[in-house]
């Protein structure tokens, strides 16, 4: 187990290094200098040169790379080249809890929708309920999350002011302010995912309901609710756990888009704004952190498997 963990951990670090390095060089090879774009209208080439020197962009690429890598190892990602020149690590630290809050809450919302929907569809197979769930699952899968986000803002926030339309409040400002700002983004992100989970729960419930131990439980004369919730559901959820890794990936990429609709300065908004401004240090920092989240959540999920299903071992 520990040997496996160590190997996977090293692998994860290599993936992050590879992504960071690829992004670093590709950003610099592809033509288009942020300062030239910034000061193009002024036509002040001296100012452009001065800024390039200030941020080290005049040095050879490998020198820039070694410097950046060495600083990044120490947690220094440089400063944003736009606006107030905020250190990138500060932006990232502020953004991280926002994105993780959205991803986490959307996971909860997805389960709140998906578990009952999947159960209803499986226990009432081939009825109108079942067809309804399947149809809504298709809709959920096909609806762009940013569109749902816009509709939620217009109908629930602007028109009837149930919830705040944009922005974010940290948890330290109180539970409700935090939650109320996250509900709409989380619904926007979680709906598509709930469709996947609902379909999954439906099919795995149908499998479980066919098993011998369910027949035994039924023969014992157990109440229907005991059968479903105590005997069937826990087993039907095992395959669902196996997609949590994919789930997290989906929710994170959803958050990246939806943050921009709700003007929440999370990692996604940081990344997109960085790209639009050609703000290299911000783009690099954001990509590194987003990548780290994916790589290590994959690792974590693989670990989870062996905890949940003891038949899976990683010793070999």
């Amino acid at each position, binding site marked *: 187990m520990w040997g496996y963990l160590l190997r996977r951990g090293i692998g994860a670090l290599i993936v992050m290094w590879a992504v960071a390095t690829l992004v670093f060089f590709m950003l610099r090879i592809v033509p288009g200098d942020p300062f030239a774009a910034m000061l193009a209208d002024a036509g002040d080439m001296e100012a452009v040169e001065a800024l390039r020197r200030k941020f080290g962009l005049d040095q050879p690429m490998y020198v820039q790379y070694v410097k950046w890598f060495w600083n990044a190892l120490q947690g220094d990602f440089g400063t944003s080249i736009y606006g107030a020149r905020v250190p990138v690590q500060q932006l990232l630290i502020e953004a991280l809890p926002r994105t993780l809050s959205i991803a986490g809450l959307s996971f909860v919302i997805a389960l709140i929708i998906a578990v009952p929907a999947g159960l209803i569809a499986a226990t009432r197979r081939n009825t109108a309920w079942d067809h309804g769930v399947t149809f809504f699952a298709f809709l959920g899968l096909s609806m762009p999350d940013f569109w749902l986000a*816009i509709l939620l803002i*217009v109908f629930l926030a602007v028109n009837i002011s149930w919830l705040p339309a944009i922005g974010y409040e940290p948890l330290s400002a109180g539970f409700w302010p935090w939650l109320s700002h996250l509900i709409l983004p989380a619904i926007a992100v979680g709906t598509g995912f709930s469709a996947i989970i609902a379909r999954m729960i439906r099919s795995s419930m149908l499998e479980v309901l066919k098993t011998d131990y369910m027949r035994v439980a039924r023969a014992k004369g157990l109440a229907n609710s005991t059968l479903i919730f105590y005997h069937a559901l826990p087993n039907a959820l095992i395959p669902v756990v196996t997609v949590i890794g994919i789930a997290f990936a*989906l929710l994170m990429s959803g958050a990246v888009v939806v943050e921009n609709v709700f003007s929440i300065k999370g990692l996604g908004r940081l*990344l997109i704004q960085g790209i639009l401004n050609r703000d290299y240090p911000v783009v690099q920092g954001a990509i590194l952190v987003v990548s780290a989240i994916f790589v290590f959540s994959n690792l974590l999920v693989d670990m989870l498997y062996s905890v949940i299903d003891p038949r899976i071992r990683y010793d070999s």
Partner: protein
Amino acid sequence: MTPDAALAPAELVARRPSGWSRFATLILADKKALVGLIVLSVLTFAAVFGPLLSPYDPNDMAFDMILGPSWAHPLGTDDLGRDLLSRLIVGTQVSLFVGVSTVTIALAVGVTLGVLAGYFGGWVDHVVMRYIDLQWAFPNFIIAVYLVAVLGTGLVNVIVAISLAFVDDFARIARGMVLSIKQEQYIAAARTVGASNFRIMWRHILPNATAPIIVQATVSVSYAILGEASLSFLGLGVEASTPTWGLILAESRSFISRAWWLGIFPGLAIMLTVLSINFLGDALRDFLDVRESRSL
């Protein structure tokens, strides 16, 4: 001579319908797939004959601003007085073109990589697998965002970014198929009669690996279209002068509470397209008997 052998070829054909006619029967029986096919046909028609069908110039700001749907403007006008229907038709062209072209490129590159890796094994397999593993750690959309981040925006870059983002899915499936097909006796037989590596891959392995690849391709088109719409919405898509579905939504965001049509129709266009492809993909999956495929 047995009675069976005496049957004319035409009767034999009648007894075992071709794949196409069986698929047609299935589509006609499956209401969802039928709806999907009809919607996609209409959209394709609109995309191909777009300029002829389009009532107005999509960028012409000649009309009153924020007009609701009417006979003159079936889907209304936007905040700059442009006809929404004409703009959505251009969006259809972009969406379908990006969806089909990216998946075609991703399929060609991915399947080639996967087949080479699975067939030759050794260091080729090692290199390809490292690359697949690297990309597999990230959702396709995030890869596309990373690539747009380094390549820049614009139609060509968006197509390159989305294509590359889907390569690993096809490579992985093709490799898996090749690994199992390689063990079949007919491959050994082909090798014995002196078929070249290329011939074995192209004529003997690939035709037997098409089913899961076709299903993956269908699913991928829907995700590619969603991806393009998301990129456009974020301002990372094709040129800002091209009215894509995502861009129309982004531009009209602040007017939607006053003009519902600006929020509903572009989103509906994206959703109907993706939904139709998913319906068709589901029917194909059943028809070709392929297990669940992954694509995010």
